[in-house]
């Protein structure tokens, strides 16, 4: 209905993942990672979230292309 959920979903994860990745890059080897057993969880998980966000946005594009092939303009109006 109106808005493809994958757009906000993708953008949210791009933003969150992006923030975490950058923060993780700058804090590599920092003492804050003693908590997470010396794993730079911000960097690793930030990248995972980034990828997920990208995937969602890509799916939106392919879905749109698929729709324009298959459906008549009137159906797309809905």
């Amino acid at each position, binding site marked *: 209905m109106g808005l493809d959920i994958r757009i*906000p979903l993708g953008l949210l994860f791009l933003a969150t993942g992006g923030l975490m990745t950058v923060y993780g890059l700058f804090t590599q080897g920092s003492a804050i990672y*003693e908590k997470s*057993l010396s794993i730079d969880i911000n960097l690793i998980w930030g990248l995972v979230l980034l990828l997920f966000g990208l995937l969602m946005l890509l799916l939106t594009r392919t879905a749109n292309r698929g729709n324009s092939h298959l459906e008549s303009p009137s159906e797309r109006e809905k």
Partner: protein
Amino acid sequence: MSSMAVQFTTSLSTIDWLIMLVYFAFVLGIGFVLKRHVRTSNDFFLAGRSIPAWICGLAFISANLGAQEVIGMGASGAKYGIATSQFYWIGAIPAMVFVGLFMMPFYYGSKARSVPEYLKLRYDEKTRAWNAGSFAIMTVFSSGISMYAMARLIQVLHIFDGLFIHLGLPLDWIFHFSVLLSAVIVLGYIFLGGLTSAIYNEVLQFFLIVAGFVPLVWIGLKNVGGWRGIQRTLGPVYTHSWRGMEHASTNPLGTQWYALIFGLGFVLSFGYWCTDFLVVQRAMAAESQLAARRVPLIAAIPKMFFPFLVILPGLIAISVPTFTQHMVAQAQTTPVPGLARNNAPSNAIASYAKSIPIGKGLIPAKIDPVNGRVMMDSNGQPLLDYDLATPNMLLHFFPTGMLGLGLTALLASFMSGMAGNVTAFNTVWTYDIYQSYIHKTGTDQHYLWMGRMATVGGIVLSIGAAYLVTSFNNILDALQLVFSFVNAPLLATFLLGMFWKRTTGHGAFWGLLSGTCAAVVHIGLTLPADAAGVGIHGGWITVLHVYPSTMAQNFWTATWAFGISFVLTVGLSLVTKPRKEEELIGLVYSLTPRPSEGNLAWYKRPAALGILVLAMLVLLNLVFA
């Protein structure tokens, strides 16, 4: 809470705040974008019946994944072990398959706009009125409890402390601020975008909860030596879901297998998933009847694996060695926990508490809020505050940055639980109470306006409920007791209504009423062994029977409520006049043509999906038996 046994300080930094702010911006942003698509009351209350099945499916789980769920399941995991997963495996999946395959055609196909409205179509006005009224009250209280729990948690974890100190505001305001904040956000996005907005946000919340909890389980498992490490530390009773079920005294739930299967697996679970409008509403928003039937089935697949995300943190929390890296320094200078326990009821504990971990693993001992002392059970052992299992896991393992995401996930789960109740409330209020009894002839625009007002009203009432719970702690216990049986008699009403055309309105109404009374009487006559004494938990008429645990009492209360409702509905239906068959087409199984599944691909066919889900369920149970 400054004297909590295992004290974690929450110091949030800019990055954590940024992650939270990004999330809040998206939540409200969705509401603003969707606002222009809301033109009719149908758009607002039913999302225009245009949402794809997978989106509704994720919202279906998310709406149920509120505060009580995430915190409560972690707590039960720590307390009872992996047997808690029965609440998902036995207590949800079969019911979700049933509602998808057999009941959804009537909810969706009857064109009812709500569950109470189905009762009106199938039975009569009084049955609908009773259901609509009790449901509306229940949703307001549930959402109030969510609000209260969230504000308490924010207080206990000191999330806003730094911010408040920085701004020079009194720390006592944190509770009010938290209640207000959650109220404004949930109000904002539902007011603007209605059910669509709630569903979209629930999908966001679903992915956030997964994103926040997967790394928690990963790092946590690594710390305790994986599943094998947990098995070594906690032993077989904690790590097998069916061990010792032949007798109530040999398993942590304190119940036999047949009480578990009938009480939880049938009455409580079917009662909730098949009749509660909060979840059914998500499926009714789907774009077609076929999609609506697929919603609970799609939801069942991730639901099955949720124990690993929400229950496992509880088991990890209790297996983590109490002295870990950053506590070692303190531990060397303080007595061992065992010794501390022996001198327990002294003030010394409270003053030591910051450095002596008298809890177990990451779970601190319970502190009496009145005198600040550690609470003890009758054997002089400290009581553990299991509700802090999951939150303490986040604080223990997550560095700043990831912590922001973890807390956001937690807040998201609170808000999705609240929003689910608010959207169900505004629909039932507007369609089943306002339009049916107060103002019958309004325009569609009027009801759309009323829906928005009901959203405001529902939130204001929830805030009231949250403060009511704050001032009278017994209310919380009483409400949780009521929630534990309220759907049970209703299940009989629905099953008989959908699958026996002879059932009459009089039978249904009086059966339902008597079932509810039976539940109250049953609680009045029995007492769980773990209750402090005769009181709110039972026995206030007289004690005829003592159950081994509160859970066993819950299962049997529900079973009695269902049984009485079922028998009376059948009995009264046989002596009252049934409705004409042609009026019941589309409402009763035997009078409704089977929905054709045509030549769809197998994974789009509800029946095939249902079988797949059940097969996966059996497999999971075998692995963890």
